[in-house]
């Protein structure tokens, strides 16, 4: 089907639904009215289970003016429109699976085996359009506004009458401006309007200043008057300037978001490697264990307490911390503690541990990805000006900073933090002052591992939960810690954010691969310049 034909069909549907709603506003009572139009033909069409038929039936239903149409459209959208029996009949699936007659909404006596009417993208769009048009006269102002925006996006001339009718009745200023904008979007490309009208439309759209407005302004027809074209060109130039600035801000935001992921990945390592000097190649696997903890928590919730799904991450965070922390303590007690002072050998041992952990997870959970869902409060996005911000990323930034400052506070303010610093600075002195260095070592390693586990909870939201998860972060983590300066938490924060933003600023110019390569080269060169990282501890040089 050509797009023109589809547009036409869409328009028809829109008008029809608008009329339908105007004629029979809200209420099922009308369904019982005598003389309701016969819609048996489209209903039969819906039972053939062919997309073309379904789409045609939607159109016919809308045109029919039947009061049952709205209910049927909604049922279709929700996958509750089913058919079955011989000859096939259409039903709406009600509560508890009861089959209802689509016209009367009464339960049917004999329920045949049924299948839902299939929906594909095309049908889904038709449903959206239908719902959109319905919503132009919805009592809910928010829905009316969204409908206006949808109409504006579709820029369908045929929708103009319905839009103008709705506009005349509209009182809410916000909705009104949205409808005006939609009208202007349609008018810009419409034939046979006066240049003054068109310029007004151009100005209205141009004031939006976003990507959509740009696309609309570019569609000013060639036949338009020169002053209209000039106005459009000015508006376009203005928007492009504006967007370039916003684009920069957007890239910085992406960079901060990437930086927060790097920070999360690296922060545990900043303890085990940065503070304790263990070249902890199993760090990535701690992150992975955290992610799998999330998976297990969600599985339990899914099967036993579905209502708790939205707080699954909040439950997983402490569990992941404790679980990976304990694993960390176990590793420290059984392996690492024999290797203090032999940093490079910790590399080998932890590399071995990482292999074992990966294979263990592979054996227990299988080699494939595991599904970790996003709670509702982490889905979706919003805009500040032209800056698109996704909630999930925002929460991850917030979380990474929370973890960072919590860790900083732990090290600065708590007894165990004090002991950790004492032990790393002068083990013998600390021991002679009665600090149980063994205990502190185990706790420190456990803390680093536990933090890695918490990072895993967050990373499960944006990456694969698979046995390979850890491997993809280990190199970046080391790079961040080294770039920031070993042994300096602030360095890790600044390092992560710097690398994140630099990566995202490079990416639009160099592409993802070359950008990453360029960044690696930059870090290598930077280390030449400052061989101890961004925040090197300065002081009287230590001899030999």
């Amino acid at each position: 089907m050509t797009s023109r034909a589809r547009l036409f069909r869409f328009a028809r549907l829109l008008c029809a639904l608008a009329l339908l709603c105007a004629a029979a506003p809200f209420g099922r009572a009308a369904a019982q009215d005598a003389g309701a139009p016969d819609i048996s033909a489209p209903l039969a069409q819906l039972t053939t289970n062919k997309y073309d038929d379904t789409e045609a039936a939607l159109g016919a239903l809308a045109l029919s003016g039947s009061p049952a149409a709205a209910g049927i459209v909604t049922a279709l959208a929700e996958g509750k429109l089913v058919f079955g029996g011989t000859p096939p009949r259409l039903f709406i699936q009600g509560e508890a699976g009861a089959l209802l007659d689509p016209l009367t909404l009464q339960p049917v006596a004999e329920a045949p085996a049924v299948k839902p009417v299939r929906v594909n993208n095309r049908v889904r769009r038709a449903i959206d359009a239908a719902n959109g048009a319905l919503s132009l006269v919805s009592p809910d102002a928010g829905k009316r506004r969204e409908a206006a925006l949808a109409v504006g996006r579709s820029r369908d001339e045929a929708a103009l009458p319905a839009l103008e009718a709705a506009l005349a009745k509209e009182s809410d200023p916000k909705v009104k401006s949205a409808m005006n904008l939609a009208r202007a979007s349609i008018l810009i490309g419409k034939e046979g309007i006066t240049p003054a009208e068109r310029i007004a439309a151009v100005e209205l759209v141009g004031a939006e200043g976003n990507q959509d407005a740009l696309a609309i302004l570019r569609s000013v027809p060639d036949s338009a008057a020169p002053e209209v074209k000039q106005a459009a060109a000015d508006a376009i130039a203005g928007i492009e300037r504006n967007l370039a600035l916003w684009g920069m801000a957007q890239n910085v935001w992406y960079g901060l978001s990437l930086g927060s992921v790097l920070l999360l990945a690296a922060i545990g390592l900043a303890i085990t490697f940065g503070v304790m000097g263990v070249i902890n190649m199993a760090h990535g696997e701690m992150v992975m264990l955290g992610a799998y903890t999330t998976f297990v928590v969600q599985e339990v919730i899914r099967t036993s307490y579905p209502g708790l799904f939205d707080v699954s991450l909040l439950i997983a965070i402490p569990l992941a911390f404790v679980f990976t922390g304990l694993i960390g303590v176990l590793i420290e007690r059984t392996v690492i503690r024999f290797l203090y002072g032999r940093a490079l050998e910790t590399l080998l041992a932890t590399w071995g541990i990482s292999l074992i952990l990966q294979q263990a997870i592979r054996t227990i959970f299988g080699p494939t990805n595991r599904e970790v869902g996003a709670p509702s409060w982490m889905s979706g996005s919003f805009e500040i000006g032209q800056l698109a911000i996704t909630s999930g990323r925002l929460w991850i930034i917030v979380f990474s900073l929370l973890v960072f400052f919590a860790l900083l506070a732990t090290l600065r303010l708590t007894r165990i933090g004090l002991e950790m610093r004492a032990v790393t600075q002068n083990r013998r002195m600390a021991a002679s002052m009665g600090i149980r260095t063994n205990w502190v070592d185990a706790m420190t390693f456990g803390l680093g591992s536990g933090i890695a586990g918490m990072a895993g909870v967050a990373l499960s939201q944006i990456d694969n939960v698979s046995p390979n998860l850890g491997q993809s972060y280990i190199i970046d983590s080391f790079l961040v810690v080294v770039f920031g300066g070993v042994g300096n938490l602030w360095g890790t924060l600044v390092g992560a954010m710097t690398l994140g933003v630099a990566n995202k600023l490079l990416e639009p110019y160099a592409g993802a691969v070359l950008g990453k390569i360029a960044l690696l080269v930059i870090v290598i060169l930077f280390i030449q310049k400052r061989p101890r990282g961004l925040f090197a501890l300065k002081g009287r040089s230590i001899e030999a």
Partner: protein
Amino acid sequence: MLNMFTHARRMAGRALVGAAALALAGGGVASAQETIKVGVLHSLSGTMAISETTLKDTVLFMVQEQNAAGGVLGKKLEAVVVDPASNWPLFAEKARELIAKEKVAVVFGCWTSVSRKSVLPVFKELNSILFYPVQYEGEESERNVFYTGAAPNQQAIPAVDYLMENEGVQRWVLAGTDYVYPRTTNKILEAYLKSKGVKSEDIMINYTPFGHSDWQTIVADIKKFGSAGKKTAVVSTINGDANVPFYKELGNQGIKATDIPVVAFSVGEEELAGIDTKPLVGHLAAWNYFQSVDVPENAAFIKKWQAFTKNDKRVTNDPMEATVIGFNMWVKAVEKAGTTDADKVIDALIGVTVPNLSGGFSAMMPNHHITKPVLIGEIKEDGQFDIVEQTPGLIVAEEWSPYLEGSKDLIADWRKPLSCGNFNVKTGKCGGAGQ
């Protein structure tokens, strides 16, 4: 060096035992105990384990089924499993081990193109048979390899046709991981789209590294590209690990299938099992098989497979079906040839037809590729696919794409007398070494 000797000694010991057994049995009779060995060359560890482990299980399942049905040529089959550990040179080593040391009659294996390329010289040198079950970029036809996955024209082109006709797509984003399959597929698609009148500025091509996990910028670019007023779709040849973060980012940035549909060639039921599919409903995939294919053969297969794996949620997917087809073809060819001798089986394989799991039949063509139906599916909430289109007939693989400059004059035909994998119809010569 010591271990080399122990190795040699042990092998010597084994040879002695074997010789003794043969002498005791007085020849001939020993064959009652003999098995036919089937090599399984799929990564069980490392990055590719995520995809390949299932195929190892599939071969083991098929071997068990075949043995239950009486084996082949009156002998039981014995699967020899090795783990090439997602390490390409190790693939070559393990292939050599399977063929030279274990004396397997056939090998089912490989997923990535590079692993296939790595073992290719070994199969040619030792003259054995490899069944390769994954969709790939084409541009290859070897005497010792049978390709049961899709060539680009059996997957990519029908998918693009579907989007053009049914969704009215006019602007295309070709997004892929930077390796040879996406590169080649996108080259073919680009040429194909242009031949359909799509302008250069309406095609955006983007490559990302393996395991790319930060998709913010690219998804935003796609969104931007798609807001130019024309219907836009993404054709994704993004590989394995990078898909999850890609789809998660699509969901996060609110790109719905009704706005910008994504059609993928590497995302199947197995991959979806690891993703929250709710935000992905309506995005598409093109394969030659879906678990949701509604035919009795498929239902029976799924039931037995889930019983075999003792997991009633275990999914099936396209490369599995390709493995099943390849396995059945090999069995049939061995029975036809009456021997497992590689040369004879290779000749016997051409023309073998077996049922596929989508209710039809697939045949091994002279180019060592098989005929396949093409199915387009939309992702459903439950991680399965809703099949929205199926090609009416079977499609023959174009192993040499007519849309590529270098290969448009090449054909493969392994029947005698041509016996050539890259015959140039213009020059009338067998292009390369071709036996």
